[in-house]
């Protein structure tokens, strides 16, 4: 069992380094019926970092992500995103400042990819039509899709392209925080590696803070600055080096198992 006392926000060591806290969870409890998924969960995400969220099956990674973006209710505790209480009155201001990429894209199937990207722009900023088309075309190019993707329907795209198109929609309003749910699952290794580069370049060039649920150890090594591991209904946050030292049976098996070793060698 984890005997180490954790610092503020579930950290193993202090990584803050003077950065702003973009996402702050304190004492969060989520529960479905009698089934408690998270309890007394603390988590801090700093500005401009890429945070990877991992955990065994059924530990509630996706639930935590859905809770943060406001799709699940919490029983106890408090979640502050960009300084705004996600259950407070002004939470509507958050929709324009956050972007979410769902696991299977969740693109609106009746709209073309370009129209999908325009939906949030039209809702929150309503610009001149030609400019909105230009923005959509730019986002499509930005996520590495060919230009003619814009006119296609989501059903005409492959799984990997749908993920990228969904990312383009999440980026429509240049959000401050981006949430990605298993972005590299189902991609071939080359596609996944390109995706990791894309995520890093978004952080570097647009200054987005990124929280991603992932099972891809290569992604954790290549893209993530820090890793949050869901253990015993709480999270433990550390860098990759710290996680490799951390003494917990699941963590050891995860990072030191055959796949973990293979990913580390690269």
């Amino acid at each position, binding site marked *: 069992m984890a005997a180490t006392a954790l610092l503020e926000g579930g950290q193993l060591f202090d990584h803050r380094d003077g950065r702003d806290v973009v996402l702050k969870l304190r004492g969060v409890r989520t529960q479905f019926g009698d089934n408690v998924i998270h309890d007394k969960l603390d988590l801090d995400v700093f500005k401009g970092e890429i945070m990877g969220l991992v955990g065994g099956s059924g530990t509630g990674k996706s639930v935590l992500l859905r809770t943060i973006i406001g799709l699940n209710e919490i029983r106890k505790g408090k979640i502050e995103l960009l300084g705004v209480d996600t259950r407070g009155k002004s939470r509507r201001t958050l929709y324009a400042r956050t972007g979410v990429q769902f696991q299977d894209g969740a693109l609106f*199937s009746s709209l073309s990819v370009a129209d999908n990207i325009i939906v949030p722009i039209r809702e929150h*900023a309503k610009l001149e039509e030609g*400019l909105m088309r*230009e923005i959509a075309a*730019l986002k499509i190019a930005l996520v590495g899709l060919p*230009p003619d993707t814009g006119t296609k329907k989501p059903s005409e795209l492959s799984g990997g392209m749908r993920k990228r198109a969904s990312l383009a929609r999440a980026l429509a309003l240049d959000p401050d925080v981006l949430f990605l749910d298993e972005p590299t699952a189902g991609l071939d290794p080359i596609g996944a590696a390109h995706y990791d580069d894309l995520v890093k370049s978004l952080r570097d060039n*647009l200054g987005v803070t990124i929280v991603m649920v992932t099972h891809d150890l290569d992604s954790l090594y290549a893209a993530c600055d820090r890793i949050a591991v869901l253990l015993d209904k709480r999270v433990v946050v550390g860098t990759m080096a710290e996680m490799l030292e951390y003494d917990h049976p699941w963590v050891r098996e995860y990072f030191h198992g055959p796949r973990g070793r293979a990913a580390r060698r690269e």
Partner: protein
Amino acid sequence: MVEARPTTLNASRTGTQVLEVGGSWTVFSIRDVSFKMGRKKPARGSAKLVDVTKVERLDTAGAIEILDLAGGGPDTEIKTNDKNHADLFKVVQSNLGKDPAKAIHVNWIAHWLDEVGHSLIHVYRQIADMCEFFGEIIVVFFEACLHPRRFRFNAVVRQMYEVWVKALAIVGVLCFLIGVVIAYQGVQQLRQFGAETFTVEAVGIGMFRELGVLLTAIIVAGRSGSAFTAQIGTMQVNQEVDAMRTIGLNPVEWLVMPRIIALVISMPLLAFWGDMAGLLGGAVACTVYLDFTFVQFFDRLRDTVGAWHFYTGMIKSPVFGFIIAAIGCFEGLQVSGSAESVGALTTRSVVESIFCVIVLDAVFSIVFLLAGV
């Protein structure tokens, strides 16, 4: 959040055209600028230098708008002291010029011809596919006749419960009401020349020949035909049908045949039930408006309405059942890819089956007329 309004200034420095911008250039602040400019964009490359040192806030949308205002392109020089802004412009500029907008503007006549051509090809393919599908049904049916176990009796019984037993209430109620309505109208109109007793014939012949079976067919098309398309379509989306094929199960044998057999058996049963409910409705209405007793009503019905009126309806009903089931299953198997197509094809299945039922009903009328029944 209060943001400084975007400002622009055109200037000329030592012969080069310069655009100076300041204030906030984000997706939330450039609305007025974007509408003012509209589509009147300056030619690419009209400003060689864009000075963004005075810009306070910037995002990709703002950067695009600034470049548009300047008529700038991938190689316009950007002057700024902020590294973040420089990075952002670099990203935007390197991804510009891949605008697919030009490809969208096509000649509308060509577009219309394209649409017409596509829909003609689609209709042709649809007919060809449907012929193939009917052929497959026939082949599977005769194969099953040789090996009766392949009729999947369990599935047939389960489908019959769905399409027959569960539909009894709605078919009964609706036919009863139609029977009442016809009798009421019949009495009102026929009384004008003292022929109100002929209401019995109107109800009897009307229900037996047309209304009982037609009404039942329309209810079944809306209820069971749509369900067939949605069930099989969902299985298509989940790749269940593909899985069946790889295991060596023929979807026509496993999914289509039980539904068709169930509906071919259920339709006459339902139509008969509907006829009876309609007659009951007519009888109730006649006791109220005509001072008939039930016995008088059914006596007159027996004496004046020949058995062939009843047979014609019963002959039609299994054919309608076959058509509804076949179209429902066919459209279900046409589903591909998205969940959206399940909805679209379910709608199409109901429309097509009701259309076919009514057309076939007209064909039957002509046949019966020629046969003299």
